[in-house]
């Protein structure tokens, strides 16, 4: 069996591991435009801050990569996929035949279309190279502007501020993390990060980047005419799936590649996983991309297993995220912002250490469909697990809104379903 994987992110790595776990004979080829071993994209922000070093970027120790017995074609682009003869063609004309192909081509950061956007010092943060370029630029940076207050924007801002750089985050929305949490929670986070030196300017846009060819960016201009001096701009306005290969090969795409629960595309020998796909959204009941790490990893694992002959399916996916700003931790998942047609309940207060806490739970009828936990995150995962359950939990809302919500607050029946019951005979044998 010949397996070919295009891409070398977490979806690709998990797929390769999944294939190798089931098929020790087949050949696996991984093709990537980048020259690095599979590494952690979220760590690029940690690299900026100096919290990790280059050696920590690869996702596995080299012995684990070796054990996978994969042929890596790194630093090479794929020209096209020929579905008829089941080949992929690399740049330069080399052809690789496949029996099963995985597209894990990921996504690229959205560009901003404003004057000056191509000046030196206007950066995005997605790749290891991006973080290296930013680190280089930081040597002459005193102030930075981050465009966009999402996961990438806020992670970048956090890294820069911890290095003592004067950071302003500019968001078009009325709040930071607008896709992740409601205004009330975002305000808690905002006042905390402002104390730590990140300035947030909401409901405005950067309309122009000012600078010169010689020295790059020197300022940005906002919609209201204000000019902010800065030597570095990081653009974090979301990502777009990389679809060129898929579209050219006639694979069905919407905003991203359409796949079924087994991660198959409309070609039964071609699978897709990760940020380039639009899998079934469990909470919205339609195909929708969340483009987050855990989903990519899970999809990759399922795709790999199925390529090697398994029959795994995923019930569905949804968005979730975890962030930590100098000890103020945030975990949110599902339809965390609530909105029309949903019931949103919230509570807030102050923890013993003086840090704020905030909780929101969102119900669709009696089903929990979203949650935000700021502060006391220790058992927030339970709420995430309950979102998947799709059972009547409305009567537990008050408990869920209280820090310390744990397994013993669940109805006994549900808890037993989750933790299982065991044959007394097995007990006898084990003691």
């Amino acid at each position, binding site marked *: 069996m010949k397996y070919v994987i295009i891409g070398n992110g977490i979806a690709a790595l998990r797929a390769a591991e999944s294939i190798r776990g089931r098929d020790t004979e087949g050949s696996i080829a991984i093709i990537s435009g980048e020259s690095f071993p599979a590494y*952690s994209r979220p760590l690029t922000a940690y690299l900026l801050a100096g919290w*990790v070093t280059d050696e920590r970027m690869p996702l596995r120790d080299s012995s684990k990569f070796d054990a996978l017995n994969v042929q890596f074609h790194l630093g090479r682009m794929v020209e096209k996929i020929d579905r008829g003869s089941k080949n992929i063609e690399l740049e330069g004309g080399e052809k690789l035949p496949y029996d099963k192909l995985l597209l894990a081509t990921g996504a690229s950061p959205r560009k901003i279309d404003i004057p000056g956007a191509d000046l030196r010092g206007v950066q995005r943060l997605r790749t290891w190279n991006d973080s290296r370029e930013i680190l280089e630029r930081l040597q002459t940076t005193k102030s930075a502007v981050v465009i966009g207050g999402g996961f990438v924007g806020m992670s970048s801002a956090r890294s820069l501020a911890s290095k003592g750089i004067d950071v302003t985050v500019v968001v078009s929305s009325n709040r930071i993390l607008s896709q992740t949490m409601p205004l009330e929670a975002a305000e808690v986070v905002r006042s905390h990060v402002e104390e730590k030196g990140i300035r947030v300017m909401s409901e405005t846009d950067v309309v122009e980047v000012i600078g010169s060819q010689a020295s790059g960016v020197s300022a940005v201009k906002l919609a209201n005419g204000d000019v902010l001096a800065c030597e570095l701009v990081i653009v974090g306005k979301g990502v777009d799936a990389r679809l060129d290969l898929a579209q050219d090969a006639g694979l069905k795409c919407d905003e991203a590649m359409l796949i079924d*629960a087994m991660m198959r595309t*409309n070609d039964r020998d071609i699978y897709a996983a990760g940020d380039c796909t639009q899998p079934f959204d469990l909470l919205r009941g339609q195909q929708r991309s969340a483009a987050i790490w855990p989903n990519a990893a899970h999809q990759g694992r399922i795709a790999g297993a199925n390529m090697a002959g398994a029959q795994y399916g995923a019930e569905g996916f949804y968005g979730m995220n975890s962030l930590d700003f100098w000890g103020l931790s945030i975990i949110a998942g599902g339809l965390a912002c609530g909105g029309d047609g949903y019931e949103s309940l919230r509570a807030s207060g102050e923890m013993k250490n003086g840090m704020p806490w905030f909780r929101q739970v969102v119900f669709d009828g009696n089903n929990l469909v979203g949650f935000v936990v700021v502060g006391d995150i220790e058992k927030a995962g339970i709420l995430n697990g309950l979102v998947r359950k799709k059972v009547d939990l409305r009567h537990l809302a008050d408990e869920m809104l209280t820090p310390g919500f*744990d397994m013993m*607050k669940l109805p006994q029946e549900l808890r037993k379903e989750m933790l299982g019951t065991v044959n007394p005979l097995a007990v006898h044998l*084990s003691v």
Partner: protein
Amino acid sequence: MKRVFAREEYCIACRLCEVWCGIEHSPSRKAYKYRQENPVSLIEVQFDKEVGNSIAMQCRHCEDAPCIDACIVGALLKDDEGRTEYNKDRCVGCWMCIMSCPYGVIKPLKEDKKIAKCDLCPHLDTPACVSHCPTAALIHTETEEGYLHEPTVADHVVDNDSLFTEG
């Protein structure tokens, strides 16, 4: 693989499992001085004060472990026997595993930017919490319950060709 299985009917909330877990994972592994060594217990007794029930919760070592999918640094991986193994050196304290664990059994160590979770005492035949449970509320067994299994395909999920039909 043997896992630790908890039975709330037999738990008397004595919290000896927490004590022995702390001892077993302390540098000295000595009951008389482990407390000075700032131990972290990897098991936690939770209570329902109204009913009077309690249960000891710890990592289930799921086959289909969401924490492994969520880990952005490769610090959580399966070992050869199926345990979910934690590599502290790789961990950066992003809390993605905490977000994804449906049992809420991974502890964030906020000061250290690390986590703590049950390792099933790999150096012992029987984990310390189990061998010291006075009521056999914790048992070490080849159970098929109480953790997330590998995903399977339900019929309705496989048959979704409609996604790709024209028009």
